[in-house]
């Protein structure tokens, strides 16, 4: 078991407007891409952010060795419940996911 962040080059999260969060996993190599793309369970990612899995969009992009997720923001940007205005810290949660293959 290895943490995703130790396999990928970079894990980034950004706002995609005030209502969406988007996470980009830059895998770096084709090998890392295969390992992450196959090892990362979509439902587990949804649970990580407390998101309804039907609302989670996943894009596996072999042309860029990138796996991308987009989801409605856990709290709408800037509301009382929001803790991170730019949403960059959510990447840490995804980076800590263990990949078991």
């Amino acid at each position, binding site marked *: 078991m290895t943490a995703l962040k130790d396999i990928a080059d970079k894990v980034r999260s950004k706002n995609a407007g005030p209502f969406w969060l988007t996470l980009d996993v830059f895998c770096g190599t084709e090998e890392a891409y295969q390992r992450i793309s196959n090892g990362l369970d979509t439902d587990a990612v949804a649970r990580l952010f407390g998101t309804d899995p039907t609302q989670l*969009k996943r894009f596996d992009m072999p042309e860029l060795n990138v796996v991308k997720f987009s989801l409605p923001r856990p709290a709408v940007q800037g509301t009382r419940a929001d803790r991170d205005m730019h949403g960059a810290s959510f990447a840490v949660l995804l980076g800590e996911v263990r990949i078991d293959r």
Partner: protein
Amino acid sequence: MVKVLVPSGALGLGYDRDALARGIAEKPDIIAIDGGSTDSGPHYLGTGTSKYSRGSTRAEWAELMAARAEAGVPLVIGTAGTCGADDAVDWLVDITREIAAERGEHLRLAVLKSGQDGGAMARALDAGRITPLTPAPEISGEILRDCTNIVALAGAEQIQAALDTGADIVIAGRTTDTAIISALPLARGCHPGGAWHGAKIGECGALATTSPNTGTILIEFDADGFTITPMGAEARATRRTVSAHMLYENSDPYRLYEPGGYLDVTAARYAALDERRVRVTGSEWVATEPYTVKLEGARRAGFQTVSLVLVRDAHYVENTRAWVDDIQTKCTAKATARVGGDFQIELRIIGADATLGPLDTSAKPGSELGVMGIVTAETEALSREVAKMLNPYLLHHPLTEQEEMPTFAFPFSPPEMPRGAVYEFCLNHVLALNDPMDAFRLSTEEIGA
């Protein structure tokens, strides 16, 4: 062929002056720069103000106005003053008048306003002209009328109308990030898919290159696509840096929705022309009916007062969660009994999970912690009153009745800091228009000497 020079990702972010000078030497047809985004939060749209200082904005805008004079082409800014509300546009117009007067320059200025009247939006909602995107908060006529600012995001058509006035400078309210770049290539008949795709790649300046901080890039649009050339001496655009930019702040990496349709880059082809230039073809523009523009709105969501206390005593550091939960319960009960009204007390533990909250299951505290008390209330007075009631708890509250009264570290007197009104984004909707100019107001004026 149309050459668009983008000095940087946003006015106020800075750029490499040599890169801008190289860009001007390339004889662009237009200089386009973004003035804002929602990324810094709802305060700016809520108040109609800029996040960047007037001094920084003025200094960079003066340099761009000088570059424009040298190039002799139009200078366009979208989403002026961070939020693109009418007040923020007026703020930049004032700055522009000052600079023009100082430079002794005579200029034609076109001003495009994107602000929407809440009452008119309530009527549009009743008429079925406002529809939700996903996920959309519930809205009503009352919520629309409550917004301190609503803006519609202008597209290429509205920027083209502003350019058609023959303006030297266009200051636009809220626009899509891409519209200020795509407008001229589209007006001159360049490839529509290429125009929008090139605009998306260029909207953050040199972010789509190997040296993001150099800022300036040149995009050449033609009948089949576009070519991106960084202006920074060391900056290179590669197939990878360019194609990966569709990921950036975009929930769908293949599609980008714009007024009047969407860009689809599924079939885009990226070719390296040399070490530093990339050519892109095959992007598609799909026009849709009816013509819609996205709306953004912000309204007041109460008043906030924030308090800060530091905890170093190991006994309390180990038991901070129980400590703050007890304070929250007791202080809420006391404030309800003594002042009542609509308020919430929240205590976030800095050094544990203040960043991610309950989502963070592996948080580990260190030798000290901060506790940030946040009181949100319906009035400014109530928010301060409840924060003052929180003060003795944060200073002295014991974990158990059996222990001596502790005293924690207040970094300030008073420890509570009023934040004034807080705002929230309340629209993720689109507005249907019969004519693209229906929701926008365009005016021109002659400024300077």
